[in-house]
């Protein structure tokens, strides 16, 4: 699939009913975006608590598996809210996003972030001990910081 075909898909996504509907209202986009931010807060909280624990900055005397058990449902909750609100936001301005570098950086890091959390970080929390976990926590924290920051930069472009 070449870039022209992708652009055409983005054009037709923008033409969908949801895209049109969000665009037709002056308050719908801001309201959906507000809930997108609350989702960011929830997901961010689970990332901050888990990754800072791995980096030995908080909860030093508490088992990391317990922290994972307590934070993972908020990761899912935050991610779900972000996804549910993110889709209509995307549909309302898909073509603008196609030309936005921040959007592509965000989406790439988002995919990397989700894969990293489910296939690298979480399995290692259960299996591994030692200094390697500091690196794992730092990597996860960094990836998700880029996702959030580049997400905000979409609005500036």
């Amino acid at each position: 699939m070449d870039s022209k075909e992708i652009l055409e898909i983005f054009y037709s996504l923008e033409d969908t009913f949801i895209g049109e509907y969000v665009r037709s209202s002056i308050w719908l986009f801001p309201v959906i975006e507000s809930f997108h931010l609350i989702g960011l807060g929830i997901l961010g909280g689970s990332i901050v608590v888990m990754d800072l624990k791995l980096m030995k900055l908080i909860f030093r005397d508490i088992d990391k598996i317990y922290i994972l058990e307590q934070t993972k449902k908020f990761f899912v909750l935050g991610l779900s809210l972000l996804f549910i609100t993110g889709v209509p936001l995307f549909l309302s301005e898909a073509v603008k996003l196609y030309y936005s570098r921040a959007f592509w950086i965000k989406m790439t890091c988002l995919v990397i972030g989700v894969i990293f959390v489910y296939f690298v970080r979480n399995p290692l929390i259960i299996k591994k001990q030692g200094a390697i976990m500091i690196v794992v926590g730092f990597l996860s924290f960094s990836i998700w910081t880029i996702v959030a920051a580049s997400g905000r930069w979409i609005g500036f472009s």
Partner: protein
Amino acid sequence: MCGLSSGLYELIIKMLDFVVWLSETKWSIGLRESLYLYPWIESTHVLSICLFFGTLLFVDLRLTGRVFSSLSVAEMNRKVLPLTLFGFLVMFITGLLLFYAIPIRNYQNIFFRVKMLLMIIAGINALFFHKRMSNEAKVWDKDSFIPGSMKSSAITSLVLWSLVIIAGRMIAYNWFDCDRQPQPRWINTLTSCEVDYSLFEGIDGF
């Protein structure tokens, strides 16, 4: 009552003079016109939501007994609350800078005013909450019982801060700006916009 409302009106006008002066200072103009500094400050403001709101979520939900229930309330607060407070500090500083960059528009922004009001209520709730918690948390930990009023205070805190986030996000999209007229009179009163209504004669609703 009349004296109170005219006093309030005077205060609002005095504040307006102040924000006008603020907007003319060199640094305010510099921030407003900066290409990258303003977006960086705003990104930092947004990212600190993860620190502030994200960690507050665990602190508050601990009081409802839904998370980290094998840790005592006191222990949870000791470990997580510093992060929450640090997040708040970053938000507060970046928030002041964001206000300083665009003082008049923010001051007359209805969502900004709603946000400030919500933050005051959230602050009062937090004070009540914290005072009671520091007095009684040790007892709850011993009995593993948390009073219902504390649970509702925790939920109130999360609801209020969610509303703060929503109102905050709307500030940038304000469709009630003073220079976007005509607006309903009650909106212009709430935003203290000075509007010459004789210009709108003949338009429906004015």
